[in-house]
């Protein structure tokens, strides 16, 4: 039996650190949705495993807060994931698994009821001004991701084209298939989707 009891999908924008957006805090609503979902995911868990994408400039392997407030060094996803867990008030033991590179199954102890916290974003190429400029394939890709997350469709999530995900700078391409292989949900809910900077953020909860 899978030791995973829930999976929460959250974005990894640096702006999830509230101070980084300056006085405006443009992702306050997204942060709040992500923290709520994390809180719900960990409620019946005894341990947390955080899946962290590490690849290229979209998912830096080492990241430093440009404002100097947070001491930096670890991958961006590790820092954002830790921050969301902290905001959710989660004090469970948490292991951080960088993807790709390590075997996630080895991190899942059979005796634990594990909540998976899955960092990852959709396409970053949805308009002029976006990190990846405009790639028309973004729209269908993000729609497919959102549909899979909303329906709890692990097969669809696992079947996303990883090369296309790379071209669209979608960091979730790395972690979503790992989560899909680890857990089949009974219920699924997509609680937030938007692309305020031409980059798609999604929050979803599988249980």
């Amino acid at each position, binding site marked *: 039996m899978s030791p995973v009891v829930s999976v929460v999908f959250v974005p990894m924008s640096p702006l999830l650190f509230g101070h980084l957006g*300056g006085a405006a805090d443009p992702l306050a609503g997204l942060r709040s949705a992500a923290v709520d979902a994390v809180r719900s995911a960990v409620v019946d868990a005894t341990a947390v495993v955080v899946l962290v994408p590490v690849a290229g400039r979209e998912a830096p392997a*080492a*990241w430093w807060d*440009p404002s100097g407030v947070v001491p*930096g060094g670890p991958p961006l996803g590790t820092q954002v994931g830790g921050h969301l867990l902290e905001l959710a008030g989660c004090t469970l033991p948490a292991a951080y698994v960088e993807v790709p590179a390590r075997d996630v199954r080895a991190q899942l102890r059979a005796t634990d009821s594990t909540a998976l916290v899955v960092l990852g974003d959709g396409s970053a190429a949805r308009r002029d001004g976006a990190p990846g400029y405009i790639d028309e394939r973004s729209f269908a890709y993000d729609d497919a991701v959102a549909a899979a997350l909303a329906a709890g469709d692990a097969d669809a999530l696992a079947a996303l084209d990883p090369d296309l995900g790379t071209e669209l700078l979608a960091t979730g391409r790395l972690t979503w298939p790992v989560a899909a292989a680890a857990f089949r949900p009974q219920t699924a809910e997509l609680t937030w989707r938007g692309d305020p900077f031409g980059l798609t953020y999604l929050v979803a909860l599988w249980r």
Partner: protein
Amino acid sequence: MLKLGRHTFDDSDLLVMAIVNRTRDSFYDRGATYADDAALDRVRLVAEEGASIVDIGGVKAGPGDAVDEAEEIRRTVGFVARVREEFPDLVISVDTWRASVGREVCRAGADLMNDAWGGHDPGLMEVAAEHGAAYVCTHTGGARPRQPPHRSTYADVVRSAIEDTVALAERALAAGVARESLLIDPAHDFEKTTWHSLEITRRLDEMVATGWPVLVSLSNKDFVGETLGLPTDQRLTGTLAATAVSAWHGARVYRAHEVVETRQVLDMVASIRGDRPPAGTTRALA
């Protein structure tokens, strides 16, 4: 001494480099000087206003219209020749990353290669050396030409800017560019968050302390807009504030859209520093 192609300047001179875009889509002027005559009118105006350098660019810095080598040459080379002929005293800079374009504009009379993408084409500094042109060493944090920044990160952005630009300067020196013809540019906004560009400005004295002359390109950029919450057409005051701080720290060349205002700020700071006598003083001296 600073030697920019045919022209030399004292170490205390603060120079305005006026932007002349031969593009349809640059973020600020939106094609205003894409046409030959409009661009030449702009050169006449900025020369009159006190620019020492014109920086002619054929490709928008960010993503936009595809501009291949041939099109970039078409936009810049003939124009450089016209400016060279009409303004023998003006330093002609060309904002390009391509060695092939650099070679053609140098033949047409360019004095300075403003390699805004930090040595992406290593042949460009060799072209500068070959033609006795000056060369700008730019910090781009590893970005490819025209690539927008994304989750840019540095353990220490100032240290990164110093290390990369000084390394480029040393490469250019080894390639044969004259020591007095090399400038370093921290490249505000290029592969940087606003936080990074603010820190670069705050600590610009550390770049100046390398001994290489520093060029700054601040004009109406996003870090000004994000800091003040203002769109591109309302960033002049913020630009001038950053200009004043940079001048106080010792930067030498200022790439700018608004020449008159920039010139006044530089003159004012130069006088505050004690490097320039006031234009005329009688107050309480009669």
